[in-house]
């Protein structure tokens, strides 16, 4: 652990080789990350974009499950209520020394739910001015890309990242830090959204990903031949038709074993993700592949990607789902490259992948 990281740095500008000849970055830097883009209230302290000193995630799943999905107003209210104690706990767990403060604050500014982002961005900026340290507005998608680096700082670049979550499904070529190219993305539903919708059709409740994962383990993945949308060509995805196919099948076969439906649906999704990821690797001429996003916690997907003929990097499940350690890591890298964000920055609910 990086015990020397917290509370040790004075913020005197030092001469450095950066643009303008002055670097404000200390040698070793603890960044407080804040994540409130959807339904997880999270804070973490990460040293030098690599060492996780603490990572606290307070899930709101129980608040939303009764409604079958994330209710924006409930999420926003919960973030406001939970964030101060989540941040306090992350700071406490990161360092025993009283009064220690991080060297920078990074908060997710988008994409996500506006009212939810407002809480994290406002708190992040306020902490930075009160402590007198830099603030960085982090892109949530970019943060997911950095989850893998927290557990393996030696991931070679360029690499292809398959980002699959409840809100996004995309293939990104990461040729360097801060250098991304969007290779393909979903044209309709995100993969995680399809999991949620199919789970609802099967009466499994919310969130659907873990529920289908569990049920599919008992089913036959070859029982039902669901379509593999857009499998033949391109790097874009479409999951809306697959969801409809499941709905139609269930209407015609109300007695079908739910486990077989779940397993066959999951197989169709993983087949598609695998084929597209391999195609992206071929096109980019690299063997380096990283999985990211909440759907990357799916057992079947992990099993399949481990077996791929590629150098595959799988973050732990805790780092795949929304967390603030990845925000702190992405924030540290961004601070190195571009310096602090303006304090006038606000939430950007539809912020795409930077530079992509």
């Amino acid at each position, binding site marked *: 652990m990086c015990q020397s990281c917290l509370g040790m740095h004075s913020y005197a500008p030092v001469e450095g080789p950066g643009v303008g000849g002055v670097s404000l970055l200390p040698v070793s830097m603890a960044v407080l990350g804040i994540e409130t883009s*959807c339904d997880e209230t999270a804070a973490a302290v990460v040293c030098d974009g690599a060492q996780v000193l603490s990572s606290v995630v307070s899930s709101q799943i129980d608040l939303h499950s009764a*409604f*079958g*999905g*994330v*209710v*924006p*107003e*409930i*999420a*926003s*209210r919960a*973030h*406001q*209520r939970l*964030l*101060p*104690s989540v*941040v*306090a706990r992350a700071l406490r767990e990161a360092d025993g020394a009283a009064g220690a*403060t991080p060297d920078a604050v990074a908060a997710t500014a988008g*994409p996500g*739910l*506006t*009212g939810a*982002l*407002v*809480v*994290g*961005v*406002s*708190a*992040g*900026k*306020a*902490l*930075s*001015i*009160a*402590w007198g340290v830099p*603030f960085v507005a982090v892109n949530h*998608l970019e943060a997911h890309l950095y989850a893998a680096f927290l557990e393996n700082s030696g991931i070679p670049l360029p690499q292809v990242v398959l980002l699959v979550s*409840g*809100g*996004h499904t995309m293939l990104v070529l990461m040729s360097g830090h801060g250098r991304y190219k*969007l290779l393909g*993305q979903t044209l309709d539903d*995100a993969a995680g*959204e399809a999991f949620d919708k199919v789970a609802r059709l099967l009466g499994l409740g919310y969130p659907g990903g873990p529920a289908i994962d569990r049920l599919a383990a008992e089913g036959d993945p070859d029982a039902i031949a669901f379509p593999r949308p857009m499998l033949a060509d391109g790097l874009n995805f479409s999951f809306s038709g697959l969801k409809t196919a499941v709905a139609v099948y269930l209407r015609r076969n109300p007695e079908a074993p739910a486990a077989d439906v779940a397993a066959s649906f999951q197989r169709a999704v993983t087949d598609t993700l695998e084929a597209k990821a391999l195609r992206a690797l071929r096109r980019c001429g690299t063997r380096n592949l990283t999985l990211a996003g909440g759907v990357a916690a799916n057992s079947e997907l992990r099993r399949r990607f481990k077996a791929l003929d590629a150098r595959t990097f799988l973050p732990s499940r805790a780092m795949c789902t929304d967390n603030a350690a990845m925000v702190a890591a992405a924030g540290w890298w961004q601070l190195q490259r571009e310096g602090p964000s303006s*304090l*006038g*920055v*606000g*939430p950007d*609910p*539809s*912020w*795409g*992948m930077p530079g*992509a």
Partner: protein
Amino acid sequence: MLTLGVESATDQCGCALADGGGLLAEVRVLLGRRHAEMLAPQVGFVCEQAGVTLSGLGAVAVDAGPGLYTGLRAGLATAQAIAMALGVPVAAVSSLEALAFGAAVCGASPSLTLSVIDARRGEVFWGWYSTSGEGDLAELTKPAVGAPEDLAAEIRRGEVVGRSAFGGAGRILVVGDGARRYAEVMGASARLELAGEELRFPPPSAVALLGRRRAVAGETLAPEHVEPVYLRPHDASRRAWHAPTRTP
């Protein structure tokens, strides 16, 4: 005790600094709903103008509503985070009482003050206060929410908890953006006096001064215990959908 007041529970966004000598600095901006963008720079600006640093704060006061949810949360998150970082307590001030207090310190003669804030969706938040010219303020009713017509009926009936609004001879000063928007609904009366532009929104100075008074009296909360006043349950019928992100 140096106190920062944060006010972003309405269309307006602003902050102010007050200490034992009174108001030190105040900024208020009306620029759509850009509270999350503006608050931190505003706090930096008032400190710079007043020649103080945040580390000198003894308390943070915040308008805890009722008001517009998103602005309210930007203000609370900001106030809570600053207080937490500095290890100082938070004093919560209601938007309605900040409006009434603004009327009192504006030197309005002793009166019954009705604060009315536009709650959108065809509703208003309101509360009754008695004020004196010396800035003394008493809350006569708890903050309420309802249709402007409900408030109009309450005014006509003269039913205010604790006293009859029409029992005395004094005027009723009506303040707030809701009062201006629904002036016609509330009805004309010789005793109703609509306040001017300066009392359309809660003055950040009122939040700082009232909050400071509260902090000196020890009426404060730990940052994590500050609760916004929503007055309305959440609307669970609006479920999230994932908007596609922009791609160039």
